[in-house]
């Protein structure tokens, strides 16, 4: 059985936010909603200051706290390890937002558009009509069904994202995980995230 995961190499991320825009174009997320975003971290003191970029998204955890707290079972885990939301079941209590340590979820109070009456210029309707519910990254589950990679992985200019089957030792992600020292965010909380990071270079 496949177990999808993502590896992000923080040494390569240049903070271009192409992934943020690709995700937005793919799913039609509304203004101020970002399923995938790039956070910044400043390190050092003048004159030796550097700015580091940390792409964050839903970690599609093996033991997702969002699924545990969800009273309506709107949040569910697929056999391939994707943590998804059934918008028709969600009652918008936001307990999942409080349970998620990764700021991966957003509550949608009302429908808003970048342009009148349409989420984005390309007419994506995936999220149309869904308000009063919680949204998050789906690892582009529709693209996966078509045999494609998530939009953020495909678009990344420095190719800092690798996506694949963690249960397949021959997959690219498994090989890179074996060859590099990687970490998972807040793994002490026991969420068992499926998103790994290669640490920044330390001088």
């Amino acid at each position, binding site marked *: 059985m496949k177990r999808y995961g993502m590896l992000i190499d923080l040494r390569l991320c240049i903070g271009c936010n192409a992934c943020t825009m690709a995700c937005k174009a793919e799913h039609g997320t509304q203004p*101020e909603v*970002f399923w995938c*975003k*790039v*956070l*910044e*971290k400043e390190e050092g003191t003048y004159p030796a200051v550097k700015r580091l970029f*940390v792409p*964050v998204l839903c970690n599609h955890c093996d033991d997702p*706290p969002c*699924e*545990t*707290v*969800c*009273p*309506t*079972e*709107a949040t569910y885990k697929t056999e391939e390890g994707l943590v998804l939301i059934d918008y*028709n*079941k*969600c*009652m*918008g*209590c*936001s*307990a999942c*937002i*409080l*349970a*998620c*340590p*990764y*700021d991966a979820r957003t*509550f*949608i*109070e009302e429908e808003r558009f970048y342009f009148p009456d349409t989420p984005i210029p390309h007419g994506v309707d995936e999220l149309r009509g869904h*308000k*009063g*519910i*919680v949204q998050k990254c789906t690892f582009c589950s529709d693209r996966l069904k078509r045999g494609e990679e998530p939009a953020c992985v495909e678009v990344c200019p420095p190719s800092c994202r690798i996506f694949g089957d963690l249960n397949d030792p021959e997959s690219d992600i498994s090989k890179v995980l074996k060859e590099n020292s990687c970490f998972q*965010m*807040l793994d002490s*909380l*026991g969420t068992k995230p499926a998103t790994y990071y290669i640490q920044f270079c330390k001088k």
Partner: protein
Amino acid sequence: MEEFIVGLRLNNRFNSLVAFNFTLEGTGAAVILGAFFFNCVPCMTAGLILVGLGALALLFDLGSPANSWRSVFNLWESWISRGALFLAGLLLFSLPYAGSAGLRDSAAAIIFKGGGIVFAILIMSYTGFLLGTMKAIPFWNSRMLAPIFFIQSLVSGIFILNFTLSIFSSELAVNVNFQLAEILLLTAGSAAIGIHLLGLPSKSPAARESVKRMLTGRLRLLFWGGGIGLGIILPLLFALIVQTEGLSKSELSLWLPLVMTGRLAGDFLFRNVYLKSGIYESILDE
């Protein structure tokens, strides 16, 4: 506008409506608990009104209340599902008990009393368990939250019970030492809050920031003035004065409603401050 910076984040979802729900549901359940003991129907009515208002506050907070009927689907893991079940259980046992004098006088009354008391206790504590299991927010992730919220509900409930009994069943109210119960509970509650807060700074940067925000930061006025001043010191002083020196009936009828209102406001402000102080741990070590 969201800030795209690695660092600590505030809880911005559980807000005043949720604090209203926590306060009114817990207090109402405590009043119903007392109403079962004293066999006081007006008290039970007051408790049911409070629980109903609390539930309404939560419905207003939901994004899609039309789906709220699904809220009992995850009883195995979700404290919200369990809370919905406890609420249904409380109504199932208390509504018929309040509505039927025949039932209250029958042998079946003991079953309704037993069930109602159990569900009332569960409602008074489940919100503490709900927040206590949120690992993402270290300030809430504590076993102390359930007893703190339980005691808060019990103290508020006792004040309302005392007040309602003094109107509808004054001979019974006179024979019950509510003030001793209040003194003991307020002292225990304060100790529990102290244990919780003292244990936090060593936990994590987010926990330290939460305590700082509450005690000396933006929320200090609400916490010290509202949660502690109105919620603990005022009712404690009142209970101590009544217990040691006693008050005349006219003095009691003047001060009890005022202190009760202050206590309820303090309870709400305390829970509101606890919610507003919730800060998520940073995803990367500083």
